[in-house]
């Protein structure tokens, strides 16, 4: 057990899998941004979709950076290592998700208030002038596919390696494909002469994104304030944290137990004298999650000091 060094062997393969998925995300989403940029024309809705897609790269980038830092050895300047980089990355990813939701909501509301009528005209390709909306629909359909696949692949890995950044990135991918579908509905709406369709669809999607982002932000702040470990998908205490507290109380009686999370790792402080036989991480957490318990400290109360 150590709070300070590298990635445990038990999850190393999954972390590498997560990294590979994030490199795929960067490549695939960059191609989506390029395709959308090529067909966006003067459409504000498409410009918003492109900006949203660029912002959606943030969680993938900070995940890759935080894993890189997590592997670094402690130094004299950072004697506790860099595992908390994951917590910081989580805050950045949650903020990026909130920015996407907020930006989309602002664009939608301002379009509805100003009653802007989106213009999608023609584009001449190979001597034929076609409605640019058809190209936009094709680009948006393409933009929906990668996030659906990548998001679904990331979720089980995020659960296994207890990585909230990867989980937030999966939420970002959900935001991406939902925004893409809203964009398709919007362009079809524009084609049918319903100028409000695009903004209305985007507004509903933005509210769902903001809800997810606020939840993630609450968790990120809790983690940075040394709160008890939270579940991946809500601000509730995580099941393994509750089980760990129960296991410690069963072993040491009615004692105070404090848990905090540094990135994906749990550190425990128990208010009692150190026992003769210190329980192993596997005894307290089970074999599968033993890697998650990075530190167990015993803090005798002044009156507890033995002979």
């Amino acid at each position, binding site marked *: 057990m150590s709070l300070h060094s590298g990635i445990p062997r038990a999850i190393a393969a999954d972390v590498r899998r997560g990294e590979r998925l994030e490199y795929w995300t960067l490549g695939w989403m960059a191609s989506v941004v390029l395709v959308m940029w090529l067909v966006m024309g003067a459409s504000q809705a498409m410009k918003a979709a492109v900006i949203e897609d660029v912002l959606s790269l943030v969680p993938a980038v900070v995940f890759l950076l935080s894993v890189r830092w997590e592997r670094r050895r402690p130094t004299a300047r950072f004697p506790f290592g860099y595992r908390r980089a994951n917590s910081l990355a989580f805050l950045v990813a949650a903020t990026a998700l909130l920015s996407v939701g907020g930006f989309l909501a602002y664009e939608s509301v301002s379009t509805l208030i100003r009653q802007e009528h989106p213009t999608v005209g023609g584009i001449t390709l190979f001597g034929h002038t076609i409605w640019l909306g058809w190209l936009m629909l094709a680009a948006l359909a393409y933009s929906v596919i990668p996030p659906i696949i990548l998001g679904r692949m990331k979720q089980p890995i995020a659960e296994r390696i207890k990585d909230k950044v990867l989980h937030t990135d999966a939420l970002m991918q959900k935001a991406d494909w939902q925004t893409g579908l809203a964009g398709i509905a919007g362009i*079809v709406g524009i*084609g049918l002469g319903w100028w409000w369709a695009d903004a209305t669809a985007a507004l509903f999607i933005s509210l769902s994104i903001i809800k997810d982002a606020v939840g993630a932000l609450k968790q990120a702040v809790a983690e940075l304030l040394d709160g008890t470990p939270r579940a991946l998908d809500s601000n509730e205490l995580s099941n393994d944290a509750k089980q760990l507290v129960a296991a410690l109380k069963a072993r040491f009686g009615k004692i105070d137990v404090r848990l905090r999370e540094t990135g994906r790792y749990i550190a425990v402080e128990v208010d009692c004298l150190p026992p003769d036989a210190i329980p192993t991480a596997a005894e307290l957490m089970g074999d599968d999650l033993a890697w998650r318990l990075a530190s167990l400290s015993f803090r005798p109360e002044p009156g507890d000091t033995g002979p």
Partner: protein
Amino acid sequence: MVRALAPLLLLLMLAGCDALPRDASGTSERIVRDGRMRVAIAPGTPDAAAALSLLRDYARQYGARLTIVRVHGEHAPHWLEDGKVDALVGHFAKASPWMADISLSKAVGRPEPEDSKRPVLRIARRNGENALILATDRAVAAMAE
């Protein structure tokens, strides 16, 4: 996700029922109904004839004729925005300050100038009138060929 896709598929089926796009404020339908297309010419547009000829051909397709609306230069883009005219013929730069408020066609009867700030003959349409915009874009492209 299937539930999310259902309304989308419905929209796409709707789209397939009729030609897209349509006008948000129904300019094309109104031109057909009234039998006239209201066009304003911005002052200082001596070469407006090429654009007017193009618009006349468009109107004729729908059994309509052109009606030239006299409007003060300063008011012309606002009249277009407000739907008081259906098209405005004038000299506009590609990077015109009006480009967000009205929809500008490509240069009429000549190649697009390299300098995006150089005003050339264009047809301005009301934003959101996508059927009219696409039809006139096609006519401008055909003229360029």
